[in-house]
């Protein structure tokens, strides 16, 4: 079954380029040039993923997203020239799965699309992530580096596991805090920073150039994992 993607963007040349690229990569593509037709297309096509521009002529992408989330949980990747953190956080909090700033590399976009489509299908998620160095066994709650088991605190494990469950997808700070610390700790980002720094220390990640736990500044974290090893 081919996966279906709806592109909502007011730039005709960009839409055309995306359509060609995505079709060639094996997706079904539908296009919309504004928010109204975009929502209609999602309702009609029931796509597996939506690429959404924030600057639409009739409505902002943020508003569209809020409206969409009232009736659909389809993964949404924001595609925008706006690169301010506030826009990213707002979009992710409003229910977007990922955020890609224009101009982007096609390779990266395709990887993000694959990650987010897979994230929707939990059954396909492997219970063991192993790249030869880091091994995370989600079923056994066991993490090891070079076959040496790490001792993690419950919070550290929870954060790592949550990130590893959606490899390559951004998880916002708010989301992590809400899920792991509870609804009253959504502002306590320093908890998270401390846990992430401990985790990096334990798994041997360089904070300046992390291999696994990547920071999306001001937005959240992303667990980077070679997708080929997850097949």
């Amino acid at each position, binding site marked *: 079954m081919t996966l279906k993607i709806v592109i909502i963007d007011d730039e005709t040349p960009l839409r055309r380029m995306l359509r*060609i690229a995505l079709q060639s990569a094996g997706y079904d593509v539908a296009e919309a040039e504004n928010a109204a037709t975009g929502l209609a297309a999602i309702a009609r096509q029931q796509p597996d993923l939506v690429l959404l521009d924030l600057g639409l002529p009739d409505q902002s992408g943020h508003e569209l997203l809020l409206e969409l989330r009232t009736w659909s949980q389809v993964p949404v990747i924001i595609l925008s020239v706006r690169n301010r953190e506030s826009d990213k956080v707002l979009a992710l909090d409003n229910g977007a799965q990922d955020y890609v700033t224009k101009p982007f590399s096609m*390779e990266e976009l395709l990887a993000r699309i694959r990650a987010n489509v897979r994230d929707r299908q939990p059954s396909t998620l492997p219970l063991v992530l192993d790249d030869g160095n880091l091994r995370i066994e989600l079923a056994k709650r066991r993490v090891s580096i070079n076959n040496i088991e790490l001792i993690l605190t419950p919070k550290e494990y929870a954060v790592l596991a949550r990130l590893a469950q959606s490899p390559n997808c951004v998880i916002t700070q708010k989301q992590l805090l809400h899920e792991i610390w509870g609804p009253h700790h959504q502002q306590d980002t320093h908890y998270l920073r401390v846990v992430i720094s401990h985790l990096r220390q334990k798994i041997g990640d360089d904070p300046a150039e992390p291999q696994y736990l990547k920071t999306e500044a001001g937005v959240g974290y992303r667990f980077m994992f070679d997708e080929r090893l997850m097949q």
Partner: protein
Amino acid sequence: MADDSATADDRAQQADALLKNIQQQQKAQLKIFLGAAPGVGKTFSMLNAAKEQRQQGIDVVIGLVETHQRADTAALLTDFEMLPRKQIQYQQQTLSEFDLDAALKRQPELILVDELAHTNVSGSRHKRRYQDIEELLAAGIDVYTTLNVQHLENLHDLVMQITGIDVRETVPQDFVYAAQEVVFIDLPPANLIERLQQGKVYAEEYAQSALENFFTVENISALRELALKVAIEQMASQVKSEQDARTKRFQYAIHDKLLVLISNRSNHYYLIRNARRIIEKRQIPWLVVWVDTGQTTNEQHKNYLQSAMSLAKDFGAETEILRGPSTLETIIPFIIKNRINSVLLGSGIRASWRPWRKRIYQKLIESGLPLEVIVYRSPKQASHPISIEEPKLKTFGNLRSHLFGAITVTIATLLAHSLHPWLNQANLILIFVVAVVLMSLRFGLHAAISSALLAFFSFNFFLTEPRYSFIVNQKDDISTLVLLLIIALVCGPAASLIRRQLFLLEESNRYSETLRSLAQTFSVVNSKKNLWRELAKTLANSLRAECHIVTFKSKRHLDYQVYPTAASVFAPIDEAAIEWTRKHRETSGRFTDTLSASQWTFFPICKHKRILAILLLRFNESITGLSPYNKNLIAAMTQQAVDAWQRIRLVNDLESARVTAQVEQLRSALLSSVSHDLRSPLSAMMGAADSLRLLDPQLDLSNRIALIDTIVQESQRLDRYIENLIDMTRINHGDIKIERDWVSISDIIGSALTRIKRYFPHAITEYREEPMMPLLYVNAALLEQVIFNVLENAVKYSPDDEKITLHAACNARTCTIEIEDHGPGIAEPLREKIFDMFYVIADGDQRQHNTGMGLAICRGMIAAHGGTITALAGQNDIGTRFLIQLPLQAELNSRKKHDS
């Protein structure tokens, strides 16, 4: 108000403290002989002290003393009068107790009651002995008593810890600490034990058990320490309460204030110097007050007063000028309001012709205010400097008023004489009465008296029998004279009082009116320059003096700005005074002690300690000093100016903050606009190129061509945008050079239309042109760009099936091009804004592919041609009509000529 009440509270507290202290001093004295344990010799010491008292003649009685069969103590008792004990039956036993009633009845000066901690047998008046003693003290009888430290209530637990004994009989510590004296009776533990062993304290069998249980060296040492501590603490608390009272008294004193009242004719210098001596001794603030009753019109007098006031100021006094018709009536409310409790004033001169009149100090004393009135009689020779003679102006006024009196009386006489045949004597006199009343109302007392006398003589001479003689032969005539004089005496002072009040009212009206209008002016002033100009103008008008305000541009010497611009440059001495005043923030120049040779007077205008400006005033040369009115006026006006200055500064700060915010907003709009417009085509290009590289095997030919087309088109779009950006920058810098040539308008419009069709094939356009259009001398490329930009805008914003019309017309001077669409139109307030660079109606990237620069570029290019471009509403208010007006060559030539 809040401040007032706080002060009142303070005072009440201070008064309480004082009262408490006094009460304590008057209260009967309580002396406690405190010991660490029984047997240290408390009773013995008490008796010795009482003996001393008795030797001084004090009436001493022993209320109750327990000798515990100690011989030396018993020996002391023999000399004293002893009250019999009260026998009380208790459970078949007869117990003896202190007889309180007997003691109260006996009323000695001092009574000795042993063992303060004792509990009375039930059936006594009080349960405890200390309560008996309280009653004795309340009755004014001094009491000596004894106490062992273990009986103190607050030490109960400690004593139990030390000795293991639960002491039941305790005395409240407050009672002990309130005693005037606590005498610590000390005996080293070893001596005490020795005494105990010798049986001097208790009977032998009892002493043995006491020695084992209680009287150990450790116990006694600890209790001794405690007793010592209690004695010290009690002493400290006594000292403290005395100190409290003392400091509070001092505080009360510094709330005092001395008011020095200088009257119109007192010797001011003498009073002020004396007042200074007093306040130096008392260390209190002082206030020098003059009440202006409007009587002092003499310039010399005024100057004298002013110099006295400034002397007082130099001595550190506050000075105040009050206004009112009478000194007493004005000063009394002032005294009450300022809570003044001392007044210093001169004795004043009792007018020898009015010996019944009380002097002002007498009136003050009799006013019933809680006042200390200090009266100085100035030495005779010292009182001379003030002339008491009538001021010149008044003399002239009097002369004139007497003249008027004579004329009025003459008229009255003529009138009465002509009416004589018809009216009787009693009615004729009324005519003279009217004349006298008129005179007194108009010219005051002196004129009234003179005209009353004149009227009497005239009446007597012309109208009474015998006619034309001054012979007074009837009792009636005497009464007429008296009547006229009484009217003059009553009406004259009343009239002068009314006139004086009127004068004061006018004066104060003028003052407040000037200030009010100034406040009004200042309320609308919005720049500092205007503020200083207005201040200078108003001051010049109300003081009738030349006025300038000097402000400083920098901290450098003499780098200043003058408002209004001075006609002549200031002399070196003036500049020196400006600098001096700036540096010292004090008045200088004429009428002052600094650089007084200058024609100007220099007043600093300060806010807190910062100098804002200097006020320069040049008064008429005939003026010899600054009147208090003028000084007040200057002070009030400059104060208002300072307030306004502060307001203006605040407004400016707000404004600049707003501008900064706007600039910031513009900057971020610009940034997001540029980033959007550069990145959008770039994203498509990069994406297409990436796809070509990445997905090459999967792409079919048509898709590959489509991607390549995308790259080409988008790079062109990017180029156009960058071109615009560069144009814009050039226009903004104003260095765009246009190379003109003769072209026909239809060619330019035609080429723009062709270009627009290429980008927007569906656009519908219509072009009309007036016949006989002249050629234009312009840069064809630029003009075409303008028309293209406007058209592009129109196409983007109008519905696809609506026509865009272009119309070119021309008169002798200008060529007009109108481009009208049927789009949504532009709201009136935004029609100018759309020409701003990067103006974005919606934020960021949320708009059609619009650079946000198009119209700004248009305006720049048209301006470079000397023309204008404006946005208007379309016909019937639908859509937008852009109006481009270009001057024709003839017009341009004539403009050039005009310029040269």
